[in-house]
């Protein structure tokens, strides 16, 4: 193998490994999809209590179901970004396979990035399933700008992946569950406008909300669902692109440094 083929083969091998491991726990795998159905149905019933509002549609009147379902669906991508790298590295620590993987002639950046391949695929499937079930409950796709949607999905992933890689670096370095996932997932629910519009928050919390990548990602994705273009949401797109450019190299550097430090302390295989 040479050039790009070798890294891609390694990503594929890691994807297949994680898929096979997850599917070896059949019940948990099936329950993931029941959770999606339950979530969609739950939001539909809650939306019966909330009248349609322009606050849900960025100027257009939209239902709460439409607003919350799109947010909940796409926040799955953030959860995958935050959890997949850390969970995969943590599992390898606990299984005892981390040293065996890192003893192979594979760049450590590739090891950690490949760890997200299966989780993101699963997350995309869950997003699709959520939206598909949503359509059964009346979710309208008539105005979706697919180009803008694809752009913001990619930006949402690339801007949140570094946070997950940093989380994995903390696990390698300190062997303890990191607060990153908890803080960001809770912060997303509270501050990023997943369940209610950011405009309802006090101004100082709106400022905190602006710092989260998921806020801009959800703004863009919701806008795309209402037909907005990337140009219409240039500030959100720019924020996400800049965050990606700044954070991705930094996060990979942090992970490499954590691995080197663990090798120096002799704690690579410990958990």
């Amino acid at each position, binding site marked *: 193998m040479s050039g790009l083929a070798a890294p891609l083969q390694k990503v594929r*091998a890691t994807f297949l490994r994680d898929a096979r491991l997850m599917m070896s726990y059949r019940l948990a795998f099936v329950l993931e999809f029941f959770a999606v159905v339950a979530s969609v149905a739950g939001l539909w019933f809650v939306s019966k209590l909330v009248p349609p509002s322009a606050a849900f549609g960025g100027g257009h009147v939209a239902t709460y179901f439409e607003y919350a379902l799109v947010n909940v669906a796409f926040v799955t991508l953030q959860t995958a970004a935050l959890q997949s790298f850390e969970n995969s590295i943590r599992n390898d620590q606990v299984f005892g396979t981390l040293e065996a993987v890192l003893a192979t002639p594979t*760049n450590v950046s590739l090891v950690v990035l490949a760890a997200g391949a299966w989780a993101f695929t699963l997350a995309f499937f869950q997003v699709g399933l959520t939206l598909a079930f949503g359509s059964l409950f009346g979710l309208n796709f008539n105005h979706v700008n697919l180009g803008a949607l694809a752009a913001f999905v990619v930006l949402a992933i690339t801007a949140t992946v570094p946070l997950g890689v940093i989380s994995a670096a903390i696990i390698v370095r300190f062997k*303890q569950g990191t607060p990153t996932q908890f803080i960001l997932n809770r912060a997303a629910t509270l501050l990023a406008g997943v369940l209610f519009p950011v405009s309802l928050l006090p101004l100082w919390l709106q400022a905190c909300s602006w710092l989260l990548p998921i806020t801009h990602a959800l703004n863009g994705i919701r806008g795309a669902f209402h037909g907005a273009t990337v140009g219409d949401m240039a500030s959100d797109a720019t924020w996400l692109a800049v965050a990606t450019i700044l954070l991705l190299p930094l996060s990979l550097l942090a992970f490499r440094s954590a691995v080197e430090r663990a090798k120096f302390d002799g704690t690579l295989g410990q958990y």
Partner: protein
Amino acid sequence: MPADYLEVDQLTKTFPTAVGLFPWVRNIGRIERRVALDDVSFGVRGGELFGVVGANGAGKSTILRIVAGLVVPDRGTVRVDGIDARTAPLAVRRKVVLCCTDDRSFYYRLTARRNLEYFGTMAGLDGARLRGRIAEVVRLVDLTDDLDRRFDAFSSGMKQRLGIARGLLGDPELLILDEPTRAVDPVHAASIRGFVRNELVGRRGKTVVLATNLLEEAWELCDRIAVLRRGRVAAIGSPAALGVGPDAVRYAITIDGADDALLARTRAVPGVIDLAIDADGACAHLRVVLDSEPRTLTELLRAVSANGICVRSIRPEERRPADVFADLISERSQ
């Protein structure tokens, strides 16, 4: 190829006594470190089977893990085929494989085939070449019929053998085996030893570094052995040079007296591997290690009696490798 395929030069390694976030915060800048290796140097020639033995905590695994790139030394260098492991780690990892025979180094819920496919791809193989290598290595370790069984259904011996098979996937030049027969029944242990000696080193010309607590295993298999004591190399040489193995015999000889000239004469006799003298009044006691040539003893006795010194008694000494090992790792031994 350089004279030594593996060069370990002045390795020193310390480990922190506490790890984790809270010790780090509490003791920032002043976490104590314990010495695991202290100025360890040795070389391993290409095609050699080199043993590393020592008591628990002597530093065997630390050396192996530094060579495999899993631990970074505080000081010192490791070169494989002339390549510095610190400056070109990926190049070194293509030449060196640590055969993790620890059964926790595999994915329990995957079959042996799926495990080998994953690790083989990570070692740089794919497609037909990967499938061919898997078929070849499992045949070598006699696991062909078990390839599609889940790893958690394997016995200890099968897990060890699969660890060796995984190590061989990338066809590395240097294999590092950390206690390859641990937890294996005697029949399979003998099979693994035969495989390492005859197949890996004998037929395929691989360089093997083997760490073991089973001393007979080291004496039986290895061309040379490094004995570690508290992170330092206490002795290094062939089993015969260390005074054990089939090529060495020991004698305790009592003579009338001894002087420096006697010592010089006897040490100069060809075939004398080691000689120690202990004076006791009018008598002196020689403890000698000789090669297995019968005439070496004759030549030694001739050298002893050259100045008219009488030999009072001569007695062969039976020493098991474990006794020699105990001597070598004891604090009194120098």
